[in-house]
């Protein structure tokens, strides 16, 4: 079941909310929690009921190991074995086919196995539970009952694609008695956050997908994309992915808030970042946090000298890339970001500061360059787009742009820029398309994000100063004008549901 579907919005969600608060109002807190777990499992099993057994076995296993580890059996062997079993399951479902394909290519063999279908959300719930086991071993967890643990793993707003929650943030919230009493404040704040995310997904991200699909499929078909077309393709994909995934995260945060639960922040206007390190503090923040706490720091972090730190950085990014999917393109993406982080790290040592605009421009260019292998289906398509971005496939602008050039066009023509029926390869780009991308640009680069808009009402787990914005006039308030705006956004987004599309991060 998708968040952006009629069945979820108009059937599943109202039933679960009404059931939860009706049971909760009678002080049957354990039954209310059980109701939420059952609803979450139903939500998970909607795609394929066969997947249910995997998540249930995973929960039973990890809770049992966690209990053993917390009962003073501080066995490192048990911890390592449990982590290995979790990772083995992940490797089997997610990477086994990739492993066999790679062997076939490298060793010129012809091994054929049945295609293993990736169970939904396995990367997310595996990571959450590994973190739980490690912290239990470290003695950093409290005694939690099985029901709370199940709710922590399966809670449907964050189950499929995050934010990757931490037991420290979630389990104490489930223990609060106030959670089970209907609170209009939570409901309204949650509804507003959900709607903002819904709008980002249904209107902004899906409205961009057509151009992205067309240009990347042309690149995959060996059509050489020219300079502007290649950069525009990557920029469009950057917008699509950002609005899709941050929209999904907002929807998840909003849904959880309707039940009185506050989730951690996942995006903080990453494209406004002025260096690549800040970008990674703002993009998929809960994954970055996990990789930092459970991979980078255990590898030694920056405690074992400069060279080792840079190696750790690269390892973390490549593995982070592979977490997104079993493919060399993800490894390349991770490698590129590792390289960018190393360059930035070394540059910082020099103490030379660049003007803010140049820093931002360099950062966004690097990010756009790296999105290409993340989206392209093959190495050939990646190289094609990269060649275009480097100007090796020529320069071509739509003919209508000459009207805005005031004579500059004749000068450009003498410098290898052609004006044609554009981007002949990428269909006809009209002025209205350009205006649409200007609109997306303004929202992504200049406007406050959802958390900043909602900051008066603690939308996320982080403290306000981590995402604060000074333009107070834009803050959300429970006023008439905001209720009209949110209603209009909700209706517009719902009307676009006839063309339902999955969230991009579901594949990871």
């Amino acid at each position: 079941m998708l968040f952006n579907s009629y069945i979820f919005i108009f059937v599943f969600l109202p039933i679960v909310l009404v059931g939860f608060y009706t049971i909760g109002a009678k002080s049957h807190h354990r039954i209310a929690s059980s109701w939420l777990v059952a609803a979450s499992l139903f939500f998970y099993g909607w795609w394929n009921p066969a997947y249910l057994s995997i998540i249930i076995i995973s929960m039973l296993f990890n809770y049992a190991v966690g209990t053993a580890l917390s009962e003073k059996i501080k066995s490192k062997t048990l911890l390592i074995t449990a982590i290995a079993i979790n990772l083995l399951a992940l490797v089997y479902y997610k990477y086994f086919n990739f492993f066999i394909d790679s062997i076939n290519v490298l060793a010129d063999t012809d091994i054929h196995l049945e295609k293993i279908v990736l169970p939904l959300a396995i990367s997310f719930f595996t990571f959450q539970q590994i973190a739980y086991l490690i912290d239990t071993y470290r003695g950093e967890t409290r005694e939690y009952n099985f029901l709370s643990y199940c709710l922590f793993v399966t809670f449907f707003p964050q189950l499929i694609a995050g934010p990757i929650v931490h037991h420290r943030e979630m389990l104490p919230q489930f223990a609060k008695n106030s959670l089970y009493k209907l609170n209009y404040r939570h409901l309204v704040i949650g509804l507003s956050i959900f709607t903002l995310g819904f709008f980002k997904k249904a209107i902004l991200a899906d409205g961009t997908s057509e151009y992205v699909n067309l240009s990347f499929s042309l690149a995959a078909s060996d059509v050489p994309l020219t300079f502007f077309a290649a950069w525009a393709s990557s920029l469009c994909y950057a917008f699509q992915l950002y609005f899709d995934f941050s929209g999904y995260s907002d929807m998840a945060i909003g849904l959880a808030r309707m039940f009185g639960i506050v989730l951690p922040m996942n995006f903080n206007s990453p494209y406004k970042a002025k260096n690549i390190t800040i970008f990674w503090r703002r993009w998929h923040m809960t994954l970055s946090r996990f990789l930092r706490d459970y991979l980078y720091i255990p590898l030694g972090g920056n405690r074992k000298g400069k060279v080792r730190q840079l190696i750790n950085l690269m390892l973390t990014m490549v593995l982070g890339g592979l977490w997104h999917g079993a493919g060399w393109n993800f490894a390349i993406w991770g490698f590129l970001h590792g390289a960018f982080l190393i360059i930035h790290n070394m540059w910082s040592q020099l103490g030379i500061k660049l003007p803010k605009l140049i820093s931002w421009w360099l950062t966004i260019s690097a990010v756009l360059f790296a999105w290409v292998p993340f989206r392209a289906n093959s190495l050939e398509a990646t190289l094609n787009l990269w060649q275009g971005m480097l100007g090796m496939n020529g320069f071509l602008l739509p003919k209508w742009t000459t009207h805005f050039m005031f004579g500059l066009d004749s000068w450009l023509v003498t410098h290898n820029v052609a004006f044609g029926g554009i981007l002949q390869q990428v269909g006809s780009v009209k002025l209205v398309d350009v205006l649409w991308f200007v609109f997306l640009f303004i929202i992504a680069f200049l406007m406050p994000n959802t958390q900043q808009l909602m900051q008066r009402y603690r939308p996320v787990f982080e403290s306000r100063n981590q995402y604060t914005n000074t333009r107070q006039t834009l803050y959300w308030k429970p006023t008439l004008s905001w209720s009209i705006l949110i209603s209009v956004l909700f209706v517009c987004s719902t009307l676009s549901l006839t063309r339902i599309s999955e969230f991009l991060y579901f594949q990871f």
Partner: protein
Amino acid sequence: MNHIFFAYSRRFFIISTLLFCLSAVFCYVIDPFSVYGRVYVKEGMVVNSPAFSSQIQMGKAIGIKQYKPDTLIFGSSRTDSGFSPKIPKKFLVNNKVYNGAYPGITIYEILRYFQHANASAPLKEVFIGLDFFQFHGSHRPNKGFSEERLAVDFNNKPSGSGLKDLQSTLISGDALFYSFKALTGLGKWKKVYLPNGFKTKGYGEGWLIL
């Protein structure tokens, strides 16, 4: 404090419901996909809404259900454009003919539309225009094709709630968009269909033109 939030939620509910209702009523009145019986006239002929062709898979499925033909023509764009609307009057005088062809139709879709039509009203005759591509193994059903709207399932058991079509024709961005577009006038539209699924003009240069 809670009453402010309660008032907000009430306003949200009322405004959203109102907007949904307005959209549905507007789309019902304009009827951009010709499913609620609104009459459009072009050059003296009763025709389907100009936006009918934009949702042709849905339009023809509903058209078959409402028209209840006893003779059906199937096929791809060749059949859709290649048959003159005069054919039924010339060769199939005693039949109630519907042209169920649409571009890119696969052989599976033809089978399913045949089952749908036969369940809506028993068929006497069926004409099928065949193309090689229809049999291509990797050729998947068209995006606009939906099992949900057909009267029977693959095993000929009654199915189809019509809920999805209700949603697509009344509460959807497409319906709203095409309703506004339909208001801009018939004259600008090139592909216009008759209520029996035939094109008014623009049918090709094939041998079937009379």
